[in-house]
Structure formats: structure tokens, C-alpha cells
């Protein structure tokens, strides 16, 4: 059976079309999932894309973490399904308890849209195996609440277990330890603020470095 990756749309999700395009770019079927869905339609992995779910008038991602579809995602993730949270999706995964830490207002207090060099510090996750260890990739960031914070103990644990997946080389938002993305203990759930789905071709993005994440999960799913 062919591989299928679900892309969730909450009201207020914006980058779902981009995430679906990135999934198709690695020749995988992108399956739209609606926030109120009661099943995951048999997908093999899930992308929680960026945007302002439900307007994010409360804490970013807070309401979305309670959407019916997220209950299914949490359950599937605990069973080992690869999940990628991008930007608002990262915030949602943190709110849902799949990833540690939280995202708060950028240090500069402005929305920031710019191309950032990230270093890939963990290439053992479901979403990063295609990258060379320490590879530097050029990926756009665009967010208002992208400053990653966690208590010292959690940061130490993440560092100790190698669960910091991506780091900024020029920190745009004040994130602790330049953290741009982290993973869960199993390396199946990854969340990051930068947007790999906006870096799949040089025509519309700064690079095609983002494809590596979608190719990595494809490798995983095909092997499985």
C-alpha cells in the first residue's frame, strides 16, 4: 500500500497547502485531516502545519491541542507514528504534551520573517535521518511566538539525550540554547519553528533543504 501522510487543518491554519505540497513533492499522498475528524483516515504519519489555529487569541496552540483530531494524533504518536509540528504545529504539540517546553513571544517583540541557517544536531529522528550530522540548512522562519523556553532541568535533559534536533546559527527570537526544534524521547515526534515546507524548491523558497525532512520520514515509512 502506498504511503500516506496526513496534514491537519484547524480553522486558522495557513500553511496546510504548503505542507501538503511538500508531502507531494516526495511523491507521497497528502491526506487532508479536519480538526473535527474522528479518525486519522489510515495515514502513516501526520504533519501539524503552521498558522494561527482558532486565531491563537489564547496562548498559541492552546485551543488546537484540544481539537478532536489531536486526541487521535497524541494516541497515534504514543504508538510510534511519526509526527512533525511546524511553527504553530510545534506550539500545538507542546500544548498537547507530546513535546516539552513552550513557545513565547519573540525576544524582539516583532513578528519575524527571514531565512535562517539551522544546524541539524540530531539525525537519528524519523524526520532528520537524511541529513548529515551537523549539516547546516537554510529554512525560513516566520512567527510572533517562536522563543523556545523550558526549565533548566528540561533543557539539560534535552541536551543530555541529544533531543535538540535543530539549532539557530543566528538566533532570531531569543530561544534558550538557540533551540529551533526538539523531539520526543523516541525521536518520532519532532517540532520546529522554522518552515521546511517553504524550502522545497529554489523558485519559491531560499533553498530546497526542507525536503530532507519529508524524504527522511518517507524512508522510515517505506522501511517499516
Amino acid at each position, binding site marked *: 500500500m502506498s504511503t500516506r501522510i496526513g496534514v491537519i487543518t484547524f480553522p486558522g491554519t495557513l500553511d496546510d497547502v504548503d505542507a501538503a505540497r511538500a508531502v507531494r513533492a516526495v511523491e507521497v499522498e497528502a491526506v487532508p485531516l479536519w480538526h473535527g475528524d474522528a479518525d486519522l483516515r489510515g495515514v502513516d504519519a501526520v504533519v501539524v502545519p503552521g498558522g494561527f489555529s*482558532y486565531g491563537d487569541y489564547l496562548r498559541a496552540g492552546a485551543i488546537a491541542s484540544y481539537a478532536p483530531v489531536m486526541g487521535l494524533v497524541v494516541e497515534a504518536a504514543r504508538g510510534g507514528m511519526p509526527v512533525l509540528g511546524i511553527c504553530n504545529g510545534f506550539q500545538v504539540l507542546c500544548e498537547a504534551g507530546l513535546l516539552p517546553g513552550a513557545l513565547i513571544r519573540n525576544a524582539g517583540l516583532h513578528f519575524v*520573517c527571514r531565512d535562517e541557517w539551522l544546524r541539524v544536531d540530531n539525525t537519528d529522528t524519523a524526520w532528520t535521518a537524511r541529513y548529515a550530522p551537523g549539516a547546516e540548512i537554510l529554512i525560513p522562519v516566520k512567527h510572533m511566538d517562536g522563543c523556545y523556553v523550558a526549565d533548566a532541568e528540561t533543557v539539560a535533559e534535552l541536551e543530555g539525550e541529544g533531543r535538540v534536533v535543530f539549532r539557530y546559527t543566528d538566533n532570531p527570537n531569543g530561544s534558550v540554547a538557540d533551540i529551533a526544534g526538539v523531539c520526543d524521547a523516541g525521536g518520532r515526534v519532532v517540532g520546529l519553528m522554522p518552515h521546511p515546507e517553504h524550502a522545497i524548491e529554489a523558485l519559491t523558497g531560499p533553498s530546497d533543504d526542507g525536503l530532507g525532512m519529508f524524504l527522511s520520514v518517507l524512508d522510515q515509512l517505506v522501511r517499516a
Partner: protein
Amino acid sequence: MTVTHAADTVDTVERAAATPEIEQPYGALGLKDNEYRRVRELLGRRPTDAELAMYAVMWSEHCSYKSSKVHLRYFGETTTEQMRATMLAGIGENAGVLDIGDGWAVTFKAESHNHPSYVEPFQGAATGVGGIVRDILAMGARPLAVMDSLRFGAADAPDTKRVLPGVVAGVGGYGNCLGLPNIGGEVIFDASYAGNPLVNALCVGAMRIEDLHLAHASGAGNKIILFGARTGLDGIGGASVLASDSFSGGTGRKKLPSVQVGDPFAEKVLIECCLELFAAKVVVGISDLGAAGLACATSELASAGDGGMVIDLDRVPLRAKDMNPAEILSSESRERMCAVVTPEHVADFLAICAKWDVTATEIGEVTEGDTLVITWHGQTVVDVPPRTVAHDGPVYERPISRPESQDALQADVPDDLARPTTPAEIRATLLRMLGSANLASRRWVTQQYDRYVRGGTVLAQPADAGMIRIDEQTHRGVALSVDCNSRYVALDPYRGAQLALAEAYRNVAASGAKPVAVTDCLNFGSPEDPGVMWQFQQALHGLADACKVLGIPVVGGNVSFYNQTGGTAILPTPLVGVMGVIDDVRRRVPTGFGTEPGESLLLLGETRPEFGGSEWAHVVHGHLGGLPPKVDLAAEALLADILIAGSRDGMLSAAHDLSDGGLAQAVVEAALIGETGARIVLPAGADPFVWLFAESAGRALVAVPRSEEPRFTEMCTMRGLPWVKIGVVDVESDAVEIQDVADFSLAELRTAWEATLPELFG
């Protein structure tokens, strides 16, 4: 304290007919004596409170174009059949629509939100973006990108620090949350905008040609459905006196902000909901609710259709208690739309709205008659011929007179201003101009805007034009640029408007796209000032005449008058937006150097010692006088043809239009954007000051791969376009060297260019 409006105190049509003598606050609502008399003539009685409110907002300058109408006709008169060939909708619709090929229709429009943005910068700018996006949506198109053209007082003026960050955050906050990429625009400073900033927002959208929807209410029995946000007391304000004692019973309870509060999340949901409604083919017509709210939407839908309409205001979902009919009709609460739906599609319509959690309510229906009847609490509060509200407003032929000061202004030529002569002086001048408020990098602003969302952005700021991919299979796309140098317009409005068009046209062509259509946003002072009306008329004629020469139609636009502080008007600012079509966006031409290993730099067009209204005269001498650069539309058309051919045949690796700041600014920007150095060798005997800083129109800087240089220059020579080789790009170099004049490291240039706005605005 609240005031209840018992049914027996409401001003009904019956009561109005019986009480002709009651004095009405039409003056406070903005109607002149003669306009009020006209309303009474049209109705054969005095208007009710609700009718008066409708006429007052719909006959306002903003909604009725009463001072500009007689002039705007000139656009139609100068549009030839040939220019109309690809126009699917033009002036008068929510937005102009063009057939761009491959079955795609593209719609675009710019609109002003100037006054609200001064009062409340964040919400004023935010709701400006929201309004123009709904205009595009109402045509049946998916909104694809926005641009914003912003003008503020002097960069270092204290109030600019209040207004600019709020406006930028508002444009970004709304557009980012809405999921539309911001692909370009302008940020300009001039003291004349200090008390009256300009916020002009443009939106572009696309649809399949067969999906075009024009707003009208036809077919008796069809239902009128209001959907989106609830109607509240915010933004009852163009006619803010609606909240005054005469309408609220003397308690003053309703002094709510006259600037609307935007909810971009609601608008995002509304977009998706509308597009699903269009796709399901369950709407006859849709209109957005913007200025003048329901008063505007109902009267326009009805007068564009073939029947009358009845509306029951009791059904309108409200978010404030005890709103009276006049308030409900003129509320400008955002994120609302109004649809005409055939009875058999109502259930499907409501189901789609329910999926998106969008409130939708049937508030009336189309009737056989020819009047718009609005009831409230079972009584008729409005009974009017809709055309009289929407289209038969007053039309004025305002006095026009060329200001006496114009001669002196034009005589004050910049020829005697002290010019830099030594290499050291030229070096210092270049750096000073590069870091000046109008020429410095806009990055501090533009990095607050999402330019990536939806994945179709091929070019965005700081490129000459924004470009988006419309079709992922065929790679067809469109490019857009908005421009205006208002100093040029002040010196000569006719020529200045043509220069604005020429610059936008050139920017689009520099990206590789073929210009096809124009929108405008005409920002001027008071139409009651004959000098301002002269500027307006001259600018409009200049623009229309130039469009005819270039063969591209004006398909839509917006007029904003009364942009002034006290008796002092802003610099006249006829913003011009040009849209171009490119068959294959993969052939777009970037702005920065260094995409190919060996590039020659050519300057296309003719350089003349033109400094009237120039950035140099402004920055170095604070001088504004003389005449703006010469306009040669045939040369502009030829230059554009060459740029487009160069892009199509892969002969260009970079192109950058020359405008404010001249060649020096263009070279430095292309080097910094491409992070690549260059060596410039000016022609023998050239006056370096003139060559580096003159602002002659019709010019572009292009980088041509060495292998293409003979073919490209031969094409220019054959077709009679002046060109001169002025240097080479050097990928090994991290400097811009101007031979015999000055050398600059890229780092030094970058600091000068990028430090200014962050230092001013944090």
C-alpha cells in the same frame, strides 16, 4: 445606562411622511443643505432616521466619488477596444478582472485606509488589509497576495514613531494571520504626511474564468443572507455623529471607537467558507460589507439587480444591545459578507457556513418591485429606490485652478545647488543617501510580513516587483509593483502621474513580466481647494493618457480626498499599481547580482542631468523645485520589451530599475541583495555626479551573462535602445568599486543601508 427603542418611537416611513417639519441632523451627518433637499425630492417626503443615515454614508465622498466622478470618466474615454480585450470586469465592480490566459482570471485592486490609520495605526492598517481582501474575494477569486504602500511624516518626527510601528504591525498582524503573503510595496517619508499618513493596501486574487462572480441581486424570491461576524457599534464612524445624541436619545452611551477592530481569524475562515460556497455553486452574487456596511451592500446589490429587495433588520445578528435601525445599517463591523442565494440552495449554503462555524442568517429577499424596503420591529423604516442611494448621489464639478505658486515652484530649479565634485565628496554623498530614510533598506518593515505562505511567492521585497505563481502546472504567474514619487507629482502633476505609471511598468518588466493592467489609489488633499482639484485632474489625465499610449487599461481604483492637516494638503500621491503576466515564472529575473558566474553590467536608457524632485536634492539640500524628469513613453515601452525579451530568452541574470537615487542606488542595492561585488567604469568624460545620481526615467541596470552579452547588446542596438556597458560583476569581490571615484566594501554599504530604520524604530 441603556436606552430602549420602543417600537412606537422609531422613525418609520409613515411617521416621516406625517411629520415633514421635524428637523434632522443632516449637517452633522455630513450632508450639505442641497444634498438633503435632494433626498427629500427623491423620496417626496423627509427621510426617516435610517434613510438619512443611509444617504449620508452612501453620498459621502468616500462612497459616492461625488467630487471625482466627472473626472474618473476620463479613464473610460481613454480606454480603447483593444485595451478592453482582456478585461472581464472594470471600474465600478468591486475590483477589476483580467483574462491572463490558460483559463485564469486575475483580479487586483488597491484601496486607501488613511484616516483611520492616523487615529489608530494598528487597527486602521489592519482593517485596511481586511477590506481590500474582501473586495477580491467578492469577485469569486481566491486572494493570493497583498502589498502595502505606506507614507509617513519625517522619519525622525516623534509622531512617526507612534504611527509607523503601529501601521506596520497592523499590516503584518492582519495579513500574516490571514495567510496571505506580502510581496512588496513602499515605505516613504515626507513631512507633508505627518498629520495624515497614507496606508494604501493592494490585494491580488485569481480564479478560473468561469468562476467570476459579479455582485447583483437578481431573481425575485432569491434570499439575502448575511454571514460572517455579528454587527456591532464599532466603526459607525465615517458618520461618527450617528453615535451622537440625536440618534441615541441623549445618553451618549455609544461613543465607541470609530475605527473598526479587525479579526483576521474570522476573515481567514470567511475566505475559506466563501470559496467553498463558490465552488458548490450555491450563490448568485456576493458583496462584502465595508464602508457603509449593510446600507452599502443592500443598496448596491439591489440596484445592480433587476428587482427590489426587502430586508428585516430584526434578523441581523447583533453584538451590542439596543442598536437602532440607523446604527445597524451603517455599522462598519468587519468580516461580514452578504450573499444572494436561490431558495433551493439555502440549506446547502447554511450547511457550508456551519462547517466553518460562520454565522449565517437569512435577512431578506429579492422582490418583484423596484424599491428597497427595510423593516424593523414590524415597521417600515426604509423605503427607497436603491439606485438613488447607491448611484444617484450628488455629482460636483469642483472649481479647478492651477495654483499661483506653481510657476515659482517650477522656476526654482535645482541647477544651482552645490554638487559634490571631488571623489571624497561623491563617496560621502553616496553613503549619506544610501542611509537616508527613503533609500535605506526596508528590511526592518518587510521582515515583519510573511512572504512565504501559500508557497507561490517567486519574487518579493526587495525585488523590483512582487511575483506569484498562479498555476503550478503551467507555471503561469503575475507580477505587481506599486509606485509613486509624490515630489514629481507636486512639481508637475500630469507628468508626475505618468512617471509613477512608468516606474511601476518598468518594475514589472524588469521582473520579466509583460505589463497588462493598472489600478490606482489617488490620494489628494481637499477637493474643495481648487488647487488640489487641479492637481487631481492633471494627475488623472496624465495617468489615463499614458495608459492609452502604453495600451494597458486602468481596471479599478480608489480616490481618497481630504488628506490634509489644517489647510495644508499632503504631496499629491496618485499611487499606481501595475500588474504584469509571465508565461513561466521560472524565467523571472532577480534583482541581485551574482546568479551567474560572469556577468557584465549594462545601463539601458538615456541618462540626462535631471535633478528636479530628486532624492539627492531632497536629502542633501531639502530642496523641492524645478521640473521632474522627462517622460518618454515610447522609450519606456521599448525598454520593457527588451527586458521581457531578455527574460524570455534567458539573456538576463539580473535587472533593477533606476528610480529614486539613480544609478548609484541601483548598483549598491543589486550588489547587497546578491551579496556580490562589482566594478563600475563610467563612460569616458562622464560627469560622475550626474551619472551616479540623476533620476532620468526609462532606465534599468541589467546583469548579462558574458555568453549572452553580444546577443543582448545587438538586440538593443537593432531596436534603438541606448545602452552602455558600465562594469562587471565580480563574484570574488566583496566591494563595489567605482573606478576613479570611490571604493566601498559591501560591509560598509550594508551597514549604511540597513542601520537606518532599526535605529529609528527599534
